[in-house]
């Protein structure tokens, strides 16, 4: 630039200024890269690249071992949609489980929150107790409850003669289903309770007192004032429980192992077995992509519905 134009003082100065500016700009870019780069790099390598590799493998007959990865087009998807009853059974199980688990754990969590929101003397201890199951991982919880259902319930049934405890727990499809729901609710309710308590404490007490003066009973206050005010908490809790229930793996694996007769096999277990037990990495990848699409749709729809409700309220 300085060679093509006649050099005079002002141009030289602005040149210097430009290069100084460039230097500052370059420094800024470098610092930005130094701060954001590591997070981005790990994220890309560990999640995003595998995600796109998964899309590619879902169109191949890759078996995980041989280096030959053959392109098969939509064959894997065709096979899944036309000739894989067990995958659909596992989807059906996971969906039913999700509905039951989400409703029950939120119902219990919210009720516990209302209970502890009263001025109880033992509320801090109770809150801790209800939360404990949540810090234990699903795998260990599943083993713990396997014992409770098989030995513990039987012992209680002998003592009390209550029919509920004498059922063949985990032994047939129905009790296995509800067994997983019970353990999930036991694990998650305390977590939901903590979120609901935080929301309830944000409710303006003067509103509640005004309602009381106006003659509203407890149920009306709950339905017309408290619930609309803490709808955001419901969005969060439903979002969390839907995601957790739909992706259930550890607890399911250690409690029932998917049995009896694959009646409680979650989608996550089905995908895992397809890939790592049957060594069908291609089909497994296709299932994983279908799973991703369903999870994405579920969560988006759910957030949209609850957000709309929030606006209405």
């Amino acid at each position: 630039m300085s060679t093509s134009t006649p050099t005079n003082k002002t141009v030289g100065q602005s040149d210097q200024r430009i290069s100084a500016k460039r230097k500052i700009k370059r420094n800024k870019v470098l610092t930005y890269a130094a701060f954001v780069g590591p997070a981005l790099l790990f994220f890309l390598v560990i999640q995003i690249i595998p995600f796109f590799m998964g899309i590619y493998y879902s169109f191949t007959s890759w078996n995980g071992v041989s280096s030959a990865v053959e392109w098969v087009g939509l064959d894997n998807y065709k096979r899944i949609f036309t000739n894989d009853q067990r995958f659909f059974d596992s989807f059906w199980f996971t969906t039913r489980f999700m509905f039951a688990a989400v409703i029950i754990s939120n119902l219990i969590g919210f009720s516990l929150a209302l209970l502890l929101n009263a001025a109880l003397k033992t509320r801090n201890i109770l809150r801790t107790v209800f939360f404990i199951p949540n810090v234990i991982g699903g795998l260990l919880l599943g083993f713990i409850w396997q014992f409770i259902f098989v030995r513990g319930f039987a012992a209680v049934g002998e003592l009390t003669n209550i029919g509920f405890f004498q059922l063949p727990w985990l032994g047939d499809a129905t009790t296995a289903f509800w067994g997983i729901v019970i353990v999930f609710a036991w694990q998650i309710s305390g977590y939901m309770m903590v979120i609901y308590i935080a929301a309830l404490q944000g409710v303006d007490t003067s509103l509640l007192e005004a309602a009381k003066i106006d003659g509203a009973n407890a149920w009306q206050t709950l339905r017309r004032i408290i619930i609309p005010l803490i709808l955001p908490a419901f969005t969060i809790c439903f979002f969390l429980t839907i995601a957790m229930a739909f992706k259930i793996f550890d607890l399911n694996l250690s409690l029932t192992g998917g049995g009896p007769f694959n009646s409680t096999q979650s989608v996550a277990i089905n995908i895992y077995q397809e890939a790592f037990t049957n060594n069908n990495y291609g089909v497994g990848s296709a299932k994983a992509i279908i799973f991703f699409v369903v999870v994405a749709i579920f969560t988006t729809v759910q957030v949209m519905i609850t957000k709309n409700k929030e606006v209405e309220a």
Partner: protein
Amino acid sequence: MNKYTAKTFSLEVIAILIALLFLVPFYFVIVNSLKSFSEILIDAAALPQQLLFSNYAQVWEILNFPKAFVNSLIITVFSNIGIVVISSMAAWKMVRTPGKLSKLLFIFFVAAMVIPFQTVMIPLVKLGGMLGIMNSIPGIIIMYFGFGVPLSLFLYHGFVKTVPVEVEESATIDGCSQFGVFWRIVFPLLKPITVTVVILNTLWIWNDYLLPLLVLQDASLRTIPLATSSFFAQYTKQWDMGLAALVMGITPIVVFFLFLQKHIIKGIAAGSIK
């Protein structure tokens, strides 16, 4: 606020009864872990006739519990350090450099939270093999960096917005480098959200089963959940030893929780509301 009435008292009694019901499974597990196998079969609900600690001694050896504990601890601690460092730095820079790039990156990180682990796990095993990070503890720690970044960055991002920028600016004028500004001034201010991030990541990583199952094949690298599951695969229905293994397995994380429960419950609430 409210007076302690008879109604409150009855609520209190109900709440305590429900809490006891919540704790019953622990009663069964602990009590039966101290019995002999035949005593468990006779009556699982009764207290043990005599306390039998030999179950624990046996399982301690079979599980190689100290090793599993140390593996879990190393993985959890170093994953946490890495996640905190990289996501807090990135979040701060992104908030302080408003513009298209930062916005786009933020959306990118957050949107990826929808991807289920099962969707990336199959190719991750392949990629991990290519990168030579399979079957190694540093390798799994690196993977946790990648999986931990989105949520942690999201939480830091929300928090940094509430930190006033003036202090940083005056420090910059005083000639402090960007790294200096961040580590000496900003990072200490982020402590409340760092506590939340560490708690959420600790509960997740310590209890995680599937990623270690895929990555760590050597018996000597097993974490507590891995060691427990392989123990159960080998000694099915041997509840006397199985329950001792479970009590040992849950003790560290329950103790961690009971010591820090105030922070944990606060952190969990803060982490999920954002």
